[in-house]
């Protein structure tokens, strides 16, 4: 291993940390009145960073096994980059009008990039120390960002709730890791289980460890923080939590379960089965009765996380490919929905479902984007969401999870109802006090356009799935 290797293999990490340091230096050097010039610099540098992450990566292990990467992990990081890029575009107006006057705009970007670098290290972790540091780095700054809207008490409340419960989750997870370490005597993922997978203490530690990750993906019954935090936090942070953070945690959960804890599959398959049923059902039932759009999407994203577990349960290269493919679609779909909510909130300050009545008459374009996103979330063909769910379900069916599949299909049917409610309100109803015609900024338009393009292209253009399958086949 030489220094050139370290620079080229870890180029994603170096580049994001470089941008972070550059912004920090900028904040220190630039005069207080000219801080607004850092916003285009941050976005521009991140566009370059995202473009660079599409250069395929190689399989490598660095730092004695603490850092490992391969083509699949590199692709996962690219997915996260695209998601963060969309969030950057969509939050541009909000940052300019709300954060900049308080001098918080640059901190928003710095913390966002710190979180992203934490997610890189989380995905590329080769041992539990790096895993835990990545886990913390990708959680704690989000808690601060959730409290960014200092004028609103709900935002502060969201931040405190997130930081307290995240602390509890990492405490439980750390306890689990220490128990597993007590049994195996090593923290490296390579050869972690080798001869110990039948020890009860290890299984006990593993369950505690799994609870910590389940908290981050907000699986039922570890989901209690999610609705309140999603509702109280600024929309950009809500989309960060419900899309990017969830995607990164799903990726690392899949990587760990399918490789490191492969021998424990008897234990985790049972646990995951129960979690999947609970998450799908309870997420859906609560989503039915929500009236706030953010809270509604929060419960819907809890339910979606339940579907993802089907792919992990199926396992193997096919299951892994369906999970990555579903997450890729989920990124565009959910960010599209959140983007529309952000655009309307920026303009009118409204986020209740009743306010959306008759939206089509005043804002036809925005409401069409939202309809497309909701169709995709519901899984209606020809939109991308249908294929994501279809591949997940067929992977689960291939492994014989028929009862689970029936429960999932029932849940999809229930979800159709509540996804169609706002669509009906927007398209078919008229309102006496409709939301006035909004004119979104160019940045927001680009963000929404990327989402729409993603939803359409992934639905109609099939080679993406076979590309992902090729990646996972070379991984497993």
């Amino acid at each position, binding site marked *: 291993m030489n220094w050139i290797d370290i620079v080229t293999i870890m180029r994603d990490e170096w580049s994001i940390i470089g941008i972070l340091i550059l912004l920090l230096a900028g904040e220190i050097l630039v005069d207080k009145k000219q801080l607004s010039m850092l916003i285009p610099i941050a976005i521009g540098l991140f566009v370059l960073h995202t473009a660079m992450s599409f250069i395929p990566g190689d399989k490598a292990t660095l730092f*004695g096994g603490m850092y490992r990467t391969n083509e699949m992990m590199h692709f996962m990081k690219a997915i996260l980059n695209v998601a963060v890029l969309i969030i950057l575009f969509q939050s541009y107006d909000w940052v300019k009008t709300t954060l900049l006057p308080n001098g*918080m705009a640059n901190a928003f970007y710095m913390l966002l990039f710190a979180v992203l670098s934490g997610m890189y290290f989380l995905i590329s972790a080769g041992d539990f120390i*790096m895993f835990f*540091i990545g886990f913390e780095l990708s959680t704690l700054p989000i808690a601060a960002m959730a409290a960014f809207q200092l004028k609103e008490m709900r935002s502060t409340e969201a931040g405190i709730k997130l930081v307290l419960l995240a602390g509890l989750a990492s405490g439980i997870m750390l306890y689990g890791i220490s*128990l597993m370490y007590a049994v195996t005597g090593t923290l490296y993922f390579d050869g972690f289980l080798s001869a110990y997978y039948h020890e009860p203490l290890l299984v006990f530690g593993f369950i505690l460890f799994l609870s910590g990750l389940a908290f981050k993906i907000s699986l039922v019954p570890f989901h209690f923080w999610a609705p309140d935090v999603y509702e109280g936090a600024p929309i950009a942070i809500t989309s960060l939590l419900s899309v990017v953070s969830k995607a990164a945690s799903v990726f690392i959960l899949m990587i760990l379960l399918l490789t490191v804890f492969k021998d424990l599959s008897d234990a985790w398959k049972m646990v995951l089965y129960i979690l999947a049923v609970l998450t799908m059902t309870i997420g859906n039932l609560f989503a039915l009765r929500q009236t706030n759009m953010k809270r509604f999407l929060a419960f819907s994203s809890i339910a979606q996380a339940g579907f993802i577990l089907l792919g992990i349960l199926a396992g193997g290269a096919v299951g892994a490919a369906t999970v990555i493919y579903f997450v890729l679609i989920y990124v565009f779909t959910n960010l599209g929905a959140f983007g529309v909510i952000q655009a309307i909130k920026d303009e009118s300050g409204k986020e209740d479902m009743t306010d959306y009545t008759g939206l089509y008459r005043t804002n036809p374009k925005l409401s069409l984007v939202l309809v497309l996103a909701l169709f995709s979330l519901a899984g209606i063909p020809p939109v991308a969401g249908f294929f994501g769910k279809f591949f997940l379900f067929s992977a689960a069916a291939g492994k014989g999870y028929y009862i689970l599949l029936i429960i999932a299909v029932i849940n999809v049917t229930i979800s159709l109802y509540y996804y169609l409610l706002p669509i009906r309100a927007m398209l078919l109803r008229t309102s006496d006090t409709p939301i006035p015609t909004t004119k979104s900024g160019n940045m927001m338009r680009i963000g929404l356009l990327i989402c729409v393009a993603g939803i359409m292209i992934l639905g109609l253009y099939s080679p993406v799935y076979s590309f992902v399958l090729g990646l996972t086949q070379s991984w497993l």
Partner: protein
Amino acid sequence: MTERIIFYILAFIMIVFSLMSVTSTKIIRSAIYLLGVLMATAGLYFLFNLNFLGAIQLTVYAGGIMVLIVIAILLTHHVGFGLPVPDKKHMILGWLAAMIGITISFFQFTTHTFKPKIGNLDDRVSKMGADMLHYGDGGFVLPFEVISILLLAGIIAAITIAKGGIPHLKKRLKSGQPTTVSSSTKKQ
């Protein structure tokens, strides 16, 4: 033998203090009991000859974090008041959960045969530092550097949250509005 006695004394102190810390209804007393737990933990480290770890436990936890907790308590309005005693249902459920946790852990720990680590533990600080700076097998240079990013994110987050609200708070104070708003009740 004597080691064993000291260990049990320290363990007893830890258990008693942590129980008192979670059951006390006066928040400042809880904090002081927690200090007892942290000190006893440092004692355990010293007992196992992990001197550097014990010193860190004292400086960071008993020193830094306790200062932080005490200041956080002093920031609140009702420092001297007692917390409300939780109702019976929550008490019973809480104790039940704790008992289940203790039982499971107890059986797991007693039935598992722990393998002692072969060889002496090299706990010299210089060895620790060399490991920390080593980048090959068994080295910890990557976590060491990533932690600096974590601490940096902590600095930025803390300053932004604490300082970002000030213009807005000043405006509120000028216009005579109350600076605190009661939080809305949540529905599930």
